[in-house]
């Protein structure tokens, strides 16, 4: 026990540092090697790019050969619009379920929670038929609709917990003041659950940004391709050209990590102000 007290903080940092290395090493390896020449990649994969091995040929190829600008625009539009819908509609439904005790409210909550357990992918074929029927194939709208449906259950589940924790007094004070339910939601509830919204945003964003499946079957056209789809096709094309492969992986990794770092502060605040139950 005495020993552990002395070694304590150092040991803790050693363990955490060690795991952080394990978590980051593969990512680091890919990003670092994407800046090397082919010889550099194969001769000494662990070395940092040097004057002789530094080479941007991978990026040049990727950027010349594929429309990364379009992919990014598409991915960002789809992700952001879906996020807005998931957060807004999810919060609205969560508020209704948390606040109003209408007949069947528990059944409704259960119904909305089923979606957490089943991947929407199982319904792909009928989904596709439906999207075709609506004439939405090869549009980003189709993706947004599907992603919204896919993100809602978890969003509602988490947000409901948070909304239930907002002191009753706040809502009642507003009701005493004659404020409408809509405005209570918009002006009081939404601002107060911001940390929770950030949490949900992160959890929703990951699968949307990274999804390969639905872009592939619902909107595979060149104009509507997302980054992940673009990367996947690109990797398929240049599977033996490691410069290009590593460069495209890097291009796919870096933006999402930047987005994540922006959200991460909010994320833990959200998680800790009332655990996700």
């Amino acid at each position: 026990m005495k020993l552990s007290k002395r070694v304590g903080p150092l040991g803790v940092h050693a363990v955490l540092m060690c795991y952080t290395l394990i978590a980051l090493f593969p990512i680091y390896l890919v990003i670092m090697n994407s800046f090397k020449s082919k010889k550099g990649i194969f001769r000494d994969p662990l070395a940092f790019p040097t004057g002789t091995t530094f080479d941007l040929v991978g990026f040049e190829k990727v950027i010349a050969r594929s429309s990364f600008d379009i992919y990014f625009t598409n991915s960002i539009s789809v992700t952001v619009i879906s996020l807005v819908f998931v957060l807004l509609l999810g919060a609205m439904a969560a508020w209704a379920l948390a606040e109003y005790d209408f007949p069947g409210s528990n059944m409704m909550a259960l119904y909305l929670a089923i979606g957490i357990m089943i991947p929407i992918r199982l319904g792909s074929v009928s989904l596709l038929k439906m999207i075709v029927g609506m004439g939405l194939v090869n549009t980003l709208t189709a993706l947004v609709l599907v992603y919204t449906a896919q993100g809602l259950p978890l969003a509602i589940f988490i947000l409901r917990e948070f909304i239930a924790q907002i002191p009753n007094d706040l809502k009642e004070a507003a009701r005493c003041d004659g404020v409408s339910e809509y405005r209570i939601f918009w002006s009081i509830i939404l601002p107060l659950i911001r940390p929770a919204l950030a949490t949900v945003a992160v959890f929703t964003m990951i699968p949307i940004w990274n999804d390969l499946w639905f872009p592939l079957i619902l909107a595979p056209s060149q104009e509507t391709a997302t980054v992940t789809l673009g990367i996947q096709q690109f990797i398929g094309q240049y599977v033996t050209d490691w410069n290009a492969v590593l460069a495209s992986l890097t291009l796919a990794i870096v933006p999402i990590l930047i987005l994540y770092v922006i959200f991460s502060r909010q994320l833990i605040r959200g998680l800790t102000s009332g655990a996700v139950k």
Partner: protein
Amino acid sequence: MADIKLSGIKKSYGKAEVLHGIDIDIKDGEFVVFVGPSGCGKSTLLRLIAGLETITDGKLEIAGETVNDMTPSQRKIAMVFQSYALYPHMTVYKNMAFGLTLGKKGLFGGGENKKLIDEKVRKAAKSLKLEDYLHRYPRELSGGQRQRVAIGRAIVRDPNVFLFDEPLSNLDAALRVNTRLEIAKLHQDLEATIIYVTHDQVEAMTLADKIVVVNGGHVAQCGSPLELYHHPANKFVAGFIGSPSMNFLEGTVTAVHAGSLDVLLDYDNSTASIPVHPDEAKLGDKVTIGIRPEHMKEGNDQDFKLSAKVNVVERLGEASYLYLENGENDPLCVKTDGHSTTKAGDKVELCADFSAVHVFNAEGNALARTTSDEKYIAPKLSA
């Protein structure tokens, strides 16, 4: 204009009845305080009046109109919550203006015009000395300031009735005294009807025109503060009002005289002859005798006498409390002045004036006294 009349108000949550028929009359401009132990239904009653809960049974009238089915805003009431319920993401100004920005015209816009709102908010802020804080957020305010913002939010709406639910319980002692005075002044200035829930003795005694003591969903007694202090209708009220609590001594009626009862006290087997209406009790009845700590004093120059051993002495400077040996029961408490030299372990002689001795029958109801005790009927505060 804003008299409030509760007739047979009942409230159930599911099968549990929480309020069992409450009748109270509140006159326009009156300051009414609801007191009672935790869980007795004070908040529920207040929320029924506010319209935040539906009334299960009975009739609630405000200004002569039955309001059972009206929304809170239609009732023209304003409520100040124990937690203040300030919107944490809005500045003080917005907190106060929030309820006003909304008229009947639209969802998000409309309502009263901006200038008018601004005027109202600034006026209220001025009267509450909040002008310098209008652009702060609640988290940047002290407890007392938050309290004032909550009141300000109520004032700007110019309601007929103010409802307060334990508004001071989150404040520290010093601030509490100040804010209490401010609320008293507010009542004077606004001339509005105020209903105020608290479990603090001092607040209730000092603020109220009328105190309603609630116990287990019933009204235990209703009257002016001094009426309750001097003439508690039952043992519950007697024990609840006054701090430290009234001392209770069990006893048995050993003789019934014209104008008084002889009671044999279990405490020291002494007999006291107490001037109460004798026809309300008969020989052999168990009764309880009550005397407030501040009405007993060391010595034996008054009618009611007791001798006891002192267990603990607490010295507060201005006064000292003596706690007397009382077997298994809660110790008896006597308040003496700060210079008393009595020590723990001392035997003391105590006495009290008969006019300060209360007698309760086995059901806990007070027996009417025969002595004149006019000296206790102090003039009612006009403020």
